[in-house]
């Protein structure tokens, strides 16, 4: 779950991290009011769940409240990438002496938290890492003991910053690591972390991604703005794992691995999948709404059902699909391949109820579904 900057900054501010003075605004007039209250130059920042806002024109420096109103007017209602801007954050401009980069993330290689720190803040850290890896310090953290004060101090000293900054920076690292743990973060990134001319550390931006699996115990995280197409958002509401593509072969399979592999096979045989939709795991009893979701996509011109049950019972999935076919009566061809747990009954159900003979080979089912899509003569638009 991506926590937008204005919410994330409130969370870290409550945790003791200094942030610029400011407030989010939903209208140009509100932006004007915030800029007036803050006094001096402000930054007007589009609040959308994506990085690279600076390059996309989503961050505007304004010298006066009138400029802030104009900038907000321009940004609000426009789009940045895939996202409509419905909120801006208006903040005072910091008196920056130097920009640092700090992030805490999960590291699949070590299986624990990883802290990254660089004196090259404010830029794309991936590029810094690629071009001058010596400028990015990384430290694996033992999650049982946490980040130690000594480890934090070593990292701070190694930056080569003015010695007066070492203790405040080490303190900042400890605070950020604590927030990473407190909020079940996959990523807590401060880029840039400004060193002001007065020697203070201020978080000018904050990217917080909370583990989707831990949102249940993060009531302070606020509402989530879901990312995706209209159909993907509808799927998310129904708790389906669904991704939309541009192709015309609708895919229904069980399990993430098999569903991905089915899409790979469609591509390898010269077709184009219309979606990723998994009806395995706990979703295997909900095949009827899953089918409805795939069919809602007007690009879909044939259906491919590929099941290989392990935990998921293919006969239960088949029952759900058949109920869906009887209810929705889709006017397109369907190709089946069914194996694994419950296959005998599932195959018989498909034969008896739909009059369709399932393929024994997955590749045959894939090829037929691609041919059916190409031959499709109807109009589902």
């Amino acid at each position, binding site marked *: 779950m991506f926590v937008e900057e204005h919410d994330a900054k409130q969370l870290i501010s409550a945790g003791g991290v200094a942030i610029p003075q400011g407030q989010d605004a939903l209208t140009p007039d509100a932006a004007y009011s915030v800029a007036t209250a803050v006094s001096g130059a402000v930054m007007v920042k589009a609040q959308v769940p994506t990085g690279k806002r600076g390059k996309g024109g989503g961050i505007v420096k304004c010298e006066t409240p009138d400029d802030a109103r104009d900038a907000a007017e321009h940004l609000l209602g426009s789009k940045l990438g895939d996202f409509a801007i419905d909120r801006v954050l208006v903040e005072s401009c910091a008196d920056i002496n130097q920009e640092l980069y700090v992030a805490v993330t999960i590291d699949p290689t070590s299986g624990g938290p990883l802290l990254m720190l660089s004196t090259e803040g404010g830029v794309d850290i991936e590029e810094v890492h690629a071009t001058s890896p010596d400028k990015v310090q990384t430290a694996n953290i033992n999650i049982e003991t946490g980040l130690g004060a000594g480890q934090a101090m070593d990292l701070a000293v190694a930056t080569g910053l003015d010695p007066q900054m070492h203790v405040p920076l080490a303190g900042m690292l400890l605070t950020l690591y604590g927030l990473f743990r407190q909020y079940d973060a996959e990523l807590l990134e401060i880029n840039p972390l400004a060193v002001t001319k007065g020697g203070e550390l201020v978080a000018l931006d904050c990217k917080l991604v909370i583990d989707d699996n831990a949102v249940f115990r993060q009531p302070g995280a606020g509402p989530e703005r879901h990312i995706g197409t209209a159909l993907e958002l509808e799927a998310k509401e129904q708790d389906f*794992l669904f*991704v939309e593509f541009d192709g015309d072969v609708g895919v229904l399979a069980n399990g*993430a*691995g098999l569903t991905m592999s089915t899409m790979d096979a469609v591509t390898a045989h010269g077709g184009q999948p219309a979606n990723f939709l998994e009806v395995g795991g706990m979703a295997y009893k909900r095949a009827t709404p899953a089918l409805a979701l795939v069919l809602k996509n007007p690009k879909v011109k044939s259906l491919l059902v590929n099941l290989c049950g*392990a935990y998921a019972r293919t006969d239960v999935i088949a029952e759900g699909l058949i109920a869906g076919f009887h209810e929705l009566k889709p006017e397109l061809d369907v190709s089946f391949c069914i194996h694994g747990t419950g296959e005998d009954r599932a195959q018989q159900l498909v034969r008896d109820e739909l009059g369709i003979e399932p393929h024994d080979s997955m590749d045959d089912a894939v090829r037929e579904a691609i041919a059916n899509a190409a031959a499709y003569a109807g109009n589902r638009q």
Partner: protein
Amino acid sequence: MISSKPNVLVQGITGSEGTYWAEQMLANGTDVVAGCTPGKGGQEVAGVPVYSTVVEALVKHRIDLSVIFVPARFAKGAAVEAIEAGVPSIIVLAEFVPVHDTMEILALARRAEAKLIGPNCPGIVFPGRDFVGIMPGWSDRLFAPGRIGVVSRSGSLGALINLNLVAGGYGQSAFLGLGGDPIVGTTFRDALEWFEADPNTDAVVLLGEVGGTMEEEAAGFIRSMSKPVVAFIAGQNAPEGKRMGHAGAMVSGGKGTAASKMSALADAGAHVATVPSDVVQLLRAL
């Protein structure tokens, strides 16, 4: 890993899933010796005694492996209880375990020198011997005793490839399901090391997927292996920034692509399939 037939504890045995799978395991040769559910001590499920705590079960039984059938948000508590009690190997099946919980379980397991498989995994199958987890270990269309080691992140893709193997006349020395989360206790590299040393395995099938770097890290070990490896990577057209069902299956910042994994594996000498059905062809061509 689990080289000899383990005595198994089922944590969460009184829940519907725990009971169903305990019965299936018992009916198919698995030595399920005890179950555990807090507050349910003294009951019996499928003829197996149930204890309220893991320690009580350990007082009465030798336990080599605990399989955890509790929902994701309680998985850490159950896993920590088992490891702290001294169970040497644990399998966490649940999907949606918070990743901070997984990191804590893994750190404790390392300190206690316990083996962790999962989370979000289908378990392990030793055809003709036993199975632990939620794969249909009894299915003679998916599993047959043989000499191919199969290791997969995913249960469903594992099922498909196992089906193809058996249809093609092969059998498995073992199937190891590692799980689809970004952090899992047992990695491809761990599994390859085990298969390389296993006298019952002649060749290994590795079934990876997009996201993370576990396949790339395994590639380094493949170079030193004496046994051939056939690999397939799912998610060859997965787009950037979209989770493909599994929490760990996401390409981000251009990293974790199927292309990167396939070339790392091929460079290391693995035989890499582009569609699942190629796996058996590649094995046959060895």
